[in-house]
Structures are given as C-alpha cells and as structure tokens.
C-alpha cells in the first residue's frame, strides 16, 4: 500500500485545502531563508571578489575607508560577549528553573515564573538604555570607561536568561511523574533525583533552550551597541570596550559605500555561517548523545 498517498488512508478530500495551505506556508518560510542567504551572497560578492576572503582575516586593522578589512576583532567581540553571557546565564537559568519547579513553595514559584516571563518581554533597547545609564557607570566606578565587554556580557546574560529558564522549566515540567516516584522510592534525595534523573531526562529540551539563547546573544545588536563602547580591538580585559559584528553593521551601514558596504555584508554572512555552524554542531552533539 502506498502510505504516502494520504487519500488511501483518508478517503475524504476535506483536508485538501488545508494541505495546500500548509505546503504554501512551509514553502514561504523555506524560500525566505534561502532568499536572504542569496541576497547576502550577492551583496557580498564585490568585496569577496575585489578584497578576497583572506584579507578579512589577515589585514592589519578594520579601516574600510582606507582599504583595511580585518573584521576578526569584531568577530572575537561577538564570540566573547556571547560566550560570557552563556557562561553566566546557563547555570543561573537552569538554577532558576529548578528553583521554581522543585524548591520554591507553589505561591512563590508562580510569581517567580511570571517575573521571568516579564523579563523575557522587555525590549532590547530598554535593556540597552538601562545598561548605558546604570550598569556602565557602575562598572566605570570599578574601572574606566565602564562601557565595556563586561557590560555587554552582563546585559546579554540578563536578556537570554529568561529563554533558558523558561525552556528548562517547561522541559522539567514534562518529566514523567513516574520517574519522580521511582526516584523517591529508591530513597534518592531531592538533589539526587534532580541530578540523576530529571536533568539527564531533559537534556535535549534544555539544550534547545541554550541554542536559542546563544543565537539571540550572537544576533543581539541594539543593547550591546549601547553598552560595549564600540572600539574595534581585541580586548585585553573584561573592562576593555569592544565592538561586535552586529553593532558594526548597525553603526556603519548608514554611510558605507562600495567595497565597504559589501564588506559589511560579508560580516553579516560570516555571522550567519557562524550561527549555522553552531546549529549544525548542536545537531551532531545531540545525535551522538550517549547515555551516561
């Protein structure tokens, strides 16, 4: 029997319009992604042709108006900011989820969850504004100038924490009650149950949340632009200003022309490839998932 022919299973043709609607939606989504990628490649072509890929990594500095195109400092700025934010937000996000799921009394847990949801809803420019007027001066008191890699990391961590906390919370909520009973019946403590059963069982759900959060951290533009100081350099310490690739595009797009403009598209393309690589790596990791 040909199972792919749906009407052998469902003789009714009532779902045909729905089927076509769904196909159209899927096609649209897929096409848009491909179009954006194509557009990025086309717009980057002049730079890739005239400047060449190697110079984006090998030039002395980023002075596009003078023909220097090294965007590595900004790529590293993006990576440092995102990694730092993940380093802070992953443990605290998971801890927040564990707290609201198993440690907090029901009334506190509900309120806490609402607050985390609220945190997720704050627009990034508001985070940036708060970072610029409050956080950066505070850091500045420790070490001038204040707008720095550290400020970017802290703001980003705050922004991606709700994503991690909420996805982890949803994953933990889906742990079958039978596991919890089984663990309790074995005399496991609450933490023994969490670390031995609940967290391993929800690994893929939590990893999805972390992936989403990482993508948001790498793509975030406005808030980091406002708090990072935007100096194109490899940071020597957490207190040095940095510029991320995203911030660079936003800052220079308005006046960039010719190869400079194309170079910005190249950096956009690089960002997208980085993201693709990350998603691919996550896919590989989850496929090779081993049972501990």
């Amino acid at each position, binding site marked *: 029997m040909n199972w792919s022919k749906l009407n052998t299973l469902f003789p009714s043709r009532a779902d045909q319009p729905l089927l076509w609607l769904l196909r159209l939606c899927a096609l649209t989504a897929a096409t848009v992604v491909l179009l954006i990628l194509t557009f990025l490649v086309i717009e980057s072509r002049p730079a890739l042709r005239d400047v060449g890929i190697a110079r984006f990594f090998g030039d002395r500095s980023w002075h596009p108006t003078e023909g220097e195109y090294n965007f590595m400092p900004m790529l590293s700025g993006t990576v440092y900011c995102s990694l730092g934010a993940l380093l802070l937000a992953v443990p605290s996000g998971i801890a927040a989820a564990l707290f609201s799921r198993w440690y907090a009394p029901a009334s506190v847990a509900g309120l806490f969850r609402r607050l985390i949801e609220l945190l997720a809803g704050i627009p990034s420019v508001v985070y940036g504004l708060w970072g610029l007027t409050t956080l950066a001066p505070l850091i500045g008191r420790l070490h001038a100038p204040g707008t720095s890699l550290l400020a970017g990391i802290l703001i980003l961590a705050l922004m991606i924490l709700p994503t991690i906390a909420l996805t982890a919370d949803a994953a933990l909520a889906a742990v079958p009650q*039978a596991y919890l009973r*089984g663990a309790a*019946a074995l*005399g*496991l403590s609450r933490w*023994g149950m969490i670390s*031995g*059963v609940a967290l*391993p069982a929800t690994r893929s759900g939590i990893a999805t949340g972390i992936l989403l959060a990482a993508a948001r951290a790498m793509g975030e533009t406005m808030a980091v632009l406002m708090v990072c100081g935007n100096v194109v350099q490899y940071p020597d310490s957490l207190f040095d200003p940095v510029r991320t690739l995203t911030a660079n595009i936003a800052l220079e797009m308005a006046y960039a022309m010719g190869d400079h403009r194309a170079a910005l598209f190249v950096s956009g393309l690089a960002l997208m490839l980085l993201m693709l690589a990350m998603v691919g790596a996550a896919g590989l990791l989850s496929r090779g998932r081993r*049972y501990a």
Partner: protein
Amino acid sequence: MSQSLNDDLNRFDHTVDPEMDNSAYTLGPLQAGPPCCHPRPLIRVEHLSVRYGEKPALEEITLDIHRGCITALIGPSGCGKTTFLSVLNRLTDMIPGCRVAGRVRMGSTDLLHPALDVQALRREVGMIFQKPVPFPLSIRRNIELSLLEHRITKRSELDGIVEQVLTDVGLWNEVKDRLNAPAPALSGGQQQRLCIARALALEPGILLMDEPCSALDPIASGVVEDLIQRLRGRYTVIIVTHNLAQARRIANYAGFFWVKERAGTLIEFGQCRQIFESPNQDLTAAYVSGKRG
C-alpha cells in the same frame, strides 16, 4: 494451628521445583531467612486510615506483615491497595493533601512519625511499580544511581553490586555485554527485572510490588513471577495483584480489600490457602471464586 503450620511447610516445599535450573541465580531459593510459616510480624499496621483531602481512601486497616513471607493484597481496582503500599514507604508524603492516621510500626520504629528519615526508610523498603520505570539512563547507571547517593563510589564495589543484582534477577547473561546501552531499549519484562534489580541493590528487607506483572506479556510475567518466588525468605514481599491465580501460586498470606462506603477496607486477612479455600466472609468467597469483582 500446628496442622496449618505443617500444611504451610509442605506447600512451601512444592514451590521449589527441583528440576528448575537455578544455577544462573545467586539467590538460592530459601537459603536465607527463616521459613515464614513461623509468623513473626515485621510490620504491624493498626487502625490505618488514609484520606486524600476529604475523600477517604482507606478505613481502619489492621494487619501484620510477616517476616520473609509473600503477602498478596487482592481486591478490585480503587479499593486502596496501592495506597496501602505507599503508606509503608511513605510515598504518600509526595501526594498533596494526603493524610494518614493510625499506627504503622516496624519493630519499634513508628513509620508514620513526621521526623522519620524517609530516605533511610525507602532504602529499607523497596518498591516496584506496575509499569516498569527505567530511568532514561544506561542499564548500569540505573542501578548505580541510588548506590552513589549511598556514598558507594568505588568502581570495583559498584561493578560487583551491579553484577550481583543483575544475576539475582536473571538478567546478567542477557545484558552483560551492553551495560552501557539505554535501559528504556530493553523489553518490558527485562525493564521490570531491571527495576527489581535496582531495588535489590540497596539491600532492602522489604519489597513492595504494585502489580509488577500486569503490564507484561504472559512469558515475561512468568519470569518475573518465578523471580518473586525466589525472593521469598530472603525478603519480605508485599504484592498487589489482580491475578488471583498468581496470588494463590506465590503468596503465603493474602489480604482481601473491598470498597465499603466509598473507602477501601480490609475484609479478610489470613493465610493464603485459607483465604482461597475456606474464606470466613461471603464476600471473600464470592470474589475468589469469581462471582463478584
């Protein structure tokens, strides 16, 4: 009394089939523990009542669980048998609104005392559920998990216990080459035996079994039933079962539960043979003969 004692002894011997190959098991049948026909109460339950919120689940249960014996609890669904088991290892603590009244003592320990170390209790009183619940971990890790919590961390010691309990449940030869394989990939019967092995690893004195065979096919069910037979003497087993023939085959004592005025009550408790062959209550007679329930 002495007559029934002898009867019990005789029946005991028949439960061990001399033809059966027991070499795969380290648990020699009846090697350890006193024969359970000398009734030595291990757990005494007096006037136990359980309520879920306002809804009564169990009313006025009084019975003794004897050391080294298999006690079967029979009765229709919803008559509180599972609730009774959960009282004995205090899993009732996990149910919001559950209130337990009465006395449950093991030796001199009050099992209902609020300050009781329930983790220690649950290590002493293992539980097997109706549906096997292997954790989504490897076979080895499923067993080690509770041992690690127990502060047993030496590799050699852990490996020894894993092999020991898997051999005890007759699973060692089936899984010894794939201890790191995911436990949920095992068949249903293997999963249930793994769960029993996991409980045995903590060296409990008592095993609570909540319909351990009802989610299994007849062959797997038979394997698990044989295993339960082998546990007699060394462990005190309390088993809830809807399979009357199974209860009759394996149990030394039987308790018959029934729903009265929307709460589960114990209608009759006694030696298994007496419950099935000469019950004192008409209701019991009707149930075990299949006329009611």
